[in-house]
């Protein structure tokens, strides 16, 4: 009837994996549309990150709560309806908080419905795990997504406009790299971050191998 698999114990890794080891943007490369489209400023990036995190937590907790009663034949329809409803809630909430942010994020708020991070987590995790595990994992994934968007947004805003959170931080003599505010700039900055993270991972693996080798030789 439902997709109930073996439930995992709640550990620190349940939270941390979404932040770093399985970061949705830098590791699994999911949710690329908002990542590239709305990270032209730090404010937009953090707003989109928080909106997605809210939808991710609420919808996945509900999926987890209902996991034993949702028949597998209609699970995707049920997940989409749940996700779309929370996206509508977020849409209203952002309009109530700030119309400027709402207009800056544009259609990408509604497009959270089809963000594969949320549907992926619902199908691969929330539908098989307890509510507490799902909540913790969703918070971790949401924070990981928000931090990744913020990393892109900060670089793009500083280089593209000379400002950070709309506050001028570079001297007036600095000629903004407008390219960074365009979609192409999103690709460049994302590529830069991916290179950096890959470099760090390779170095970490090499060190681990060296340590392993030293242990073997020392025996």
């Amino acid at each position, binding site marked *: *009837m439902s997709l109930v698999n073996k439930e995992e114990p709640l550990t620190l890794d349940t939270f941390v994996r979404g932040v770093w080891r399985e970061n949705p943007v830098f590791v699994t490369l999911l949710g690329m549309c908002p990542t590239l489209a709305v990270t*032209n400023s730090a404010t937009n990036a953090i707003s989109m990150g928080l909106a997605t995190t809210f939808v991710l937590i609420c919808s996945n907790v*509900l999926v987890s709560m*209902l996991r034993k*009663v*949702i*028949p597998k*034949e*209609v699970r995707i*329809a*049920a997940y989409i*309806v*749940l996700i*779309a*409803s*929370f996206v*509508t*809630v977020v849409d*209203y*909430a952002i*309009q*109530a*908080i*700030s*119309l400027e942010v709402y*207009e800056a994020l*544009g259609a990408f708020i509604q497009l959270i419905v089809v963000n594969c991070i949320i549907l992926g987590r619902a199908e691969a995790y929330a539908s098989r795990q307890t509510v507490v595990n799902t909540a913790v994992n969703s918070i971790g994934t949401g924070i990981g997504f928000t931090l990744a968007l913020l990393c892109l947004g900060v670089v793009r805003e500083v280089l*593209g406009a000379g400002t950070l959170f709309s506050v001028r931080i570079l001297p007036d003599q600095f000629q*903004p790299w*407008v390219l960074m*505010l*365009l979609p192409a700039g999103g690709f460049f900055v994302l590529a830069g971050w991916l290179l950096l993270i890959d470099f760090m991972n390779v170095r970490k693996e090499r060190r681990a191998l060296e340590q392993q080798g030293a242990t073997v030789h020392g025996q």
Partner: protein
Amino acid sequence: MSAEAPVQAPVQAVPFLPMIRTLGLVSLICGFAVTFAYQWTKPYVEENQRITTERAVRAVLPGAVTQRAFVLGKDGISPAAADSPAEDVVYVGFDAAGKIVGIAARGASRGYADLVHIMFSYDPACECINALKVTKMNETPGLGDTVLKDPDFKRNFEALDARVNAEGTALANRIVTVKHGTKREAWQIDAISGSTVTSKAIGRGLDQSAQRLVPRMQRHLAELERGGR
């Protein structure tokens, strides 16, 4: 010699009732969440929209002490409500003595990426458009968005001719955006080189809105003035 009949896998019955029950439950939860969010945020959204409009009107009518919104229909004026057609709504700015200092209205036209929304103010004394603000646009940074900062472009809207024709049905001259450096007439807008599409969108939006509203403003000027008292 009897051929063996192929063995068919037993067909599993689709759990029809549980499916309907679950989808019904999910829809109920979602419907409640959406309705609650709508009702809860509605006053805040309306207040935000009011503040945004008020700011835009204040930007194009800096001399106004008070402002009032009216629907400027073909046959007369009436106070604007939340559901009034946006293209017929005008914001009249009054000074301390209750005299009209200007009338603001909205306009929009398609730019390079999306609609470019504008707010402009019409001065009945000089029969000209004397201020313009882009309220919303999604044009390319570094190209289209120069219309927001370029001082020469802004100068186009200090006294843009918007006189009404003899019949009082339309503008005497269409407001048009011309190529940079070729402006000869008071009703022309000098485009910015490099953001011609956005400059033209602003000109088009302004012309469409002014053609529709300015003759009505002139026709009902006395009523609008009385409306402020």
